[in-house]
């Protein structure tokens, strides 16, 4: 019988140790870090699994986009540190949230969406609707012709009328 698990020696990722990785804000309000005694004036955090595991496997890179470490779990950090990490991540991963879909009209292969975002009406057009809509868990991401993304955080909980408008395009 073959054993399918990889032995820890062959493939192992080094994660940063919360005690040796301290985040702070630099004077201009961007995230800075001290990792293993090395100082980084500005670091960039990237999620490895932005859709399914937004709080785990976070890559830390310097301003040149060179990776300097990986956080295994945000929850291993102290609450203050977590707040810094999360606020940086929420900046980077901010995505306008669709609250209501007023209409979706199809004309000549383009789909024209009229939606409400943050209480403001917003119109955008989507091409190739199958590839532009991505469902993950309860959420749905829609990408418009310019590459802008919009999110429905919990599809099941938005009003039924909006849901029915989008439903034909989901699978």
């Amino acid at each position, binding site marked *: 019988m073959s054993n399918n698990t990889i032995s820890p020696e062959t493939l192992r990722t080094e994660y940063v140790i919360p005690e040796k990785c301290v985040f702070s804000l630099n004077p201009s309000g961007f995230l800075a870090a001290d990792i293993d005694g090395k100082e980084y004036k500005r670091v960039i955090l990237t999620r490895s699994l932005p859709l399914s595991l937004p709080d785990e496997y976070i890559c830390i890179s310097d301003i040149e986009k060179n990776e300097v470490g990986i956080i295994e779990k945000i929850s291993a950090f102290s609450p203050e540190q977590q707040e810094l990490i999360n606020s940086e991540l929420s900046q980077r991963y901010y995505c306008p949230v669709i609250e209501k879909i007023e209409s979706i009209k199809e004309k*000549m292969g383009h789909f024209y969406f009229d939606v409400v975002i943050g209480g*403001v009406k917003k119109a955008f057009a989507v091409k190739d609707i199958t590839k532009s809509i991505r469902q993950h868990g309860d959420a749905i991401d829609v990408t418009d012709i310019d590459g802008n993304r919009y999110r429905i955080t919990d599809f099941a909980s938005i009003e039924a009328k909006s849901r029915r408008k989008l439903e034909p395009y989901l699978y």
Partner: protein
Amino acid sequence: MGKKPKRDKSPQIEKNRHKFPELLLKKLEEAGLCTENLIFCCTGDMDNDACYRSAWLSFDEKGLYIAYGTEELMKIKGKKHIEPKYTVEEIVAIPIEDIDKLETERYVSTGRLISVKDGVQTSLVKFSIGRIGQFDNLMKAFNSFKEKGEAEIPTSAEPEDKKCKKCGKPCPPGKDFCKKCGKNSAVAVRLFKFFGGYIPQIIAIIATMLLGSAVSVFIPQVSTRALFDDVLANPDGLPAAELLKALGVLVLSIFGVKLLNTLLTVIQQHLSGGIMPMVIYDIRVKIFKAMQRLSVGFYSSKQTGSLMERVISDSNNIYWFFVDGVPSVIIDTATIIGVLILMFVMSWKLSLIVIVAMPIIIVTLVFGDRFFRGMHHRNWLFGARVSAMVSDNINGQRVIKAFAKEDDEFDRFSKASEDLMNSEIKLTVSEATLFPILEVVILMLTTVVLGFGGVLVAKGEMTAGTLLTYIVYLEMLRGPFSFLSWVSNWWSRCADSAQRVFEICDAEPDIVEKENAVGFENLRGDIEINELEFEYEPARPVIRKLSLEVKAGDMLGIVGKTGAGKTTIANLIARLYDAKEGNVKIDGIDVRDLKLTELRRNIGLVSQDIYLFIGTIADNIRYAKPDATMNEIIAAAKAASAHDFIMKLPDAYETRVGAGGQKLSGGERQRISIARTIIQNPKILILDEATAAMDTETERNIQNSLTKLKAGRTTLAIAHRLSTLRDSDYLAVIDNGRIVEYGTYSELLKQKGEFYKQYKIQSEALKTIGIGTSEAETEEE
């Protein structure tokens, strides 16, 4: 800095493309901004906290200005176009001394404009990621102005939002109208245009159809009314023999009329059978041609599964609708009209009942159409996914087998098929629910008519024959009505297909030949790349300010890490994509000014991923020059070291390759592809990892023959294996879209930089396995 900013001097900028619209400028003036000397303008859609808000950014010699406000699109009375109405709420001015330079940062759905002063970054404004191109332009214009006192306005700058001028909906990049307004001719109109060349036939077809329906509407008059009232009821009290004779005449005329009807149907089918295949041929050819016209960018952004679906199944959908659907629509509509008229003539009282029932039927029809359109679309999506999965599976068979994933693949497929099945069941069930409703309505109608008509007959207001005929007519309505109720679905399916077809036809190729494009007089083969910048997606630069020069007849070797942008450079030289900034010149002529066919005929690109077409090996080799002689083919194959292995195949040069043909190894395919390029005899030869899949000896052989061919040819060779590039006159090391090292082989080795490092690693590897790199060692000294 003190210099007056130069404005609008560049000939490439037409109509102040980088300026705000007049209406907005006026508002900004009113809000206290001096717009006189604005150098560059750009529109944003968020504030610094990523809340949606119109933001207008601009700068002049004194500062950078961010104005916030709203933009509403108003329909102006008496005008066809809509006009935006601007309100400016707030203006933030930042003195130019407070900014050393601007930066943009790309996030997932948003981007951010940042100012830098003494190394301190300050976030200025955020924007939707789709605008990053505009903000990049602002950044470049500002930074160049700061640096040189003169703003370099990127040629692609366009500050305005892309909104349809007619309805305000977002529109596709580079267009003034949205798809809806831009193409005012509806799908149907466009489809019918395909029939434009066949007007006489169409008229003949429609005429026979109408005649046919008139005849069939007339039949009950003879077969029912005349039979009952004039013969069977025997109103004139004729003797039996006379009656029999009248009956005979009647029966014969019924037969005659029915025969005539059948004849007309046959004629109609013959006529339409003659033109429909031609029309569909036109449509198919049009799609295919449109596809050829499109640039590689289009193909890399679409699933080929759905593209294939479009060409084949969509044109079939259209075909069957026009062959079966449209004639029935015409016949049935004509029948309904004719029958209704006759019914009114026969008895307006009974017809009133029918008129009352009509709205119910129509409402059911309209409701059904709406309801089924969405369902059909969904069904199509599921179908497309299943076929994409099949093609994915077929293309990936080797990987699937290697990982023993057949069962998982099967599960995935059956899940998708199940979805399709469920959606089809839902559709069929819904359709099966709607139709009986219609049937019941018609049945009720018949019953009421029969009862009421019976009363009329009893009162003597109507003959029995007329009532019977009336019922026959009512029955005649049933077929056309249920057909018309579902033909709308059919039509929606056809319209769906037509829409997808037109989408391809309407897609604008990114690469278009200029109107006054030039050809080569006498091509030498100088390549010159000036400050080339390129990105596949906005703000993800792949090539950054890259300059290179290759003299005619020289060979340039390009090395670099994977993903460095080597293939991209080759693509840009062959103009498979267009540069964002900077240019590629051949013999001093910008490739964008050259005739595409001429350019590509003179560039031989042996690309990294090789494609062999369905056909024989000989066909594939002479692809670029169909009239090549067998002599040339063999010579080319020999030069590419392909001859020997080809001769080992049972059918030699006539071996079928490509999809479904003989399988060849990676190196064998590469060699065929090299032979193909050798036959093309291009002035400029680009070898993108052309020999990477071959053993060193074969590579050396090919190189020797290429060296012979090299005379008078400019060669660009991309390779990872440095030994491949030993014959290069010059070498360029590319990293991250830039040239990091440049020089001859030995110069680069002396520099002890990146190239030397790579060289060391590769020769070390050879040493450890016991292969001396004697020649290389001598060079190292």
